[in-house]
């Protein structure tokens, strides 16, 4: 446990003393700010319209503002997380520090989990910025907080998934650009995989569609923790981290 914490802390140290974390946070702040502004504006226009026409259904901030906002953020994460994940192992290998980790009394899974947790913590910091944006909904409105919490929880799970796979890709190369491009490609593919469900109804297509990382997020955004989706994310995280560990091991055998 102490080993995981040691690795995690050093990783966070590197994120926050270098411009990496601050640049990512700043860009994310601008984007999440814009999205919050956009959903709020369209929510207000919709509210105004339904008032003018009279009647209309009751408005719901959770369903009509917060839920679409969180879904948008889930898509933005697909662009951001490969950038965070690409350096995890590629940089260590390039600057030779992986040799230090590999010859220290610490196991491969501990290294992998420590680094993954640090990357997840950075994503958590990004979500704190989003929390700041969302606080306006609570100041000027009265939304239900429970779907809000499940939405954030879902974002973290989905992020953990993408980071686990980004870590795996990063562990296979010394080159950060390669790791970044491949990680981004994979994240994008996992996003659009559910399109295949419209191609037909064969078992194979169903399985492919099920693997789509974003479709599992919908239930969280609606305020439901579906055990099916929870298990999907957890097993994807486990798979990603397991592959990373294996990949590090194979690096040693081939060296």
């Amino acid at each position, binding site marked *: 446990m102490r080993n995981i914490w040691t690795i995690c802390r050093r990783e966070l*140290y590197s994120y926050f003393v270098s411009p990496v974390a601050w640049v990512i946070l700043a860009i994310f702040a601008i984007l999440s700010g814009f999205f919050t502004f956009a959903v709020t504006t369209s929510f207000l226009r919709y509210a105004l319209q339904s008032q003018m026409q009279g009647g209309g259904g009751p408005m719901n901030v959770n369903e009509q503002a917060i839920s679409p906002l969180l879904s948008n953020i889930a898509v933005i994460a697909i662009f951001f997380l490969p950038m965070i994940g690409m350096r995890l192992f590629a940089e260590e290998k390039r*600057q*030779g520090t*992986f040799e*230090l*980790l590999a010859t*220290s009394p610490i196991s491969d899974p501990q290294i992998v989990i420590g680094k993954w947790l640090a990357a997840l913590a950075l994503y958590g910091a990004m979500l704190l910025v989003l929390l700041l944006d969302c606080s306006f909904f609570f100041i000027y409105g009265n939304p239900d907080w429970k779907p809000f919490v499940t939405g954030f929880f879902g974002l973290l799970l989905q992020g953990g998934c993408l980071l686990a796979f980004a870590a795996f890709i990063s562990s296979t190369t010394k080159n950060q650009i390669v790791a970044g491009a491949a990680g981004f490609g994979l994240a994008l593919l996992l996003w659009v995989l559910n399109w295949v469900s419209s191609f037909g109804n064969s078992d194979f297509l169903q399985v492919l569609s099920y693997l789509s990382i974003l479709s599992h997020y919908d239930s969280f955004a609606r305020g439901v923790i579906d055990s099916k989706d929870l298990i999907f994310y957890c097993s994807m995280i486990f798979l990603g981290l397991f592959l990373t560990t294996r990949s590090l091991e194979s690096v040693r055998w081939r*060296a």
Partner: protein
Amino acid sequence: MIQVEGLTKRYARQVAVDNISFEVNQGEIVGFLGPNGAGKTTTMRVLTCYMPPTAGSAKVAGFDVYESPMEVKRRIGYLPETPPLYPEMEVGDYLKFVAKLKRVPSGDVNRRVDEVAERCSIADVKDRLISKLSKGYRQRVGLAQAIIHNPEVLILDEPTSGLDPKQIIETRELIKGLAGDHTIILSTHILPEVEAICQKVIIINKGKLVATDSVDNLTHRMHGSDASVVVVDTAGQADSTAVQQRLEQVSGVSKVLGRHVEDSGFTYEVESLAGRDVRADIARVIVQSGWNLHELKSVSFSLEEVFLELTGGQAPQEGAE
């Protein structure tokens, strides 16, 4: 302290280390010598549990590198060819991180960091970013991280490469100072370095073990003898063959080689049986024969010559691997 038996490491296309065996005793400083690409780094990586051997075994402090790598890693300090530094960290923070990584108890971390910083003379740069350090300082920080957990065994891969002469001398002194508490293996392709610091030398070439012995023995054993150079001036009283025959009769002399014949004197290289100093006898014989003795000195073969002979005339090169 270290036992290596039949160690072989095969990569996809080539055999990097081929069936080598050697032993290192506690407290020894051993030089690991070989031309570029001889398999030095690979052997060290196996010893530090960075990669497993293809065949054979290696034991450090009684623990097998394959079966109990954690125990081995705790007892080893390793300085790879490029010091494993995080450029964005401060020196002090970096050393604290390594101390924790190497399982130094939490209460001792700060004390150990101060100690090794003092010992490696980097205390004055503790607050500097590693990326701002000069090559010499980086190397010393690398050495500091290797000894931070006070390991029984130190493995240093070319610890003096890329340093200026003053830094090289300082680093050598530092390494010598570490001997005794630590068993040290250092690789190098700079021969005077081995003569300067090591008691024992292991020479490998193209993955094969060529020689392993103490530095003194090795230079002797190469020729099975000690040698002296004699310059004799007979003032025309005898020709060079006569002098050579006379020298061969001295007891303890195994071989006499005529080198130059000049008017001023004849030069011979006299080899004697190991451990016997025949210089006094040679001098007496020459003087008794009524000749003039111009020069008489004992020569030992430098490690350089031994190295060249053992590795098939491939000169060691300075510079990058």
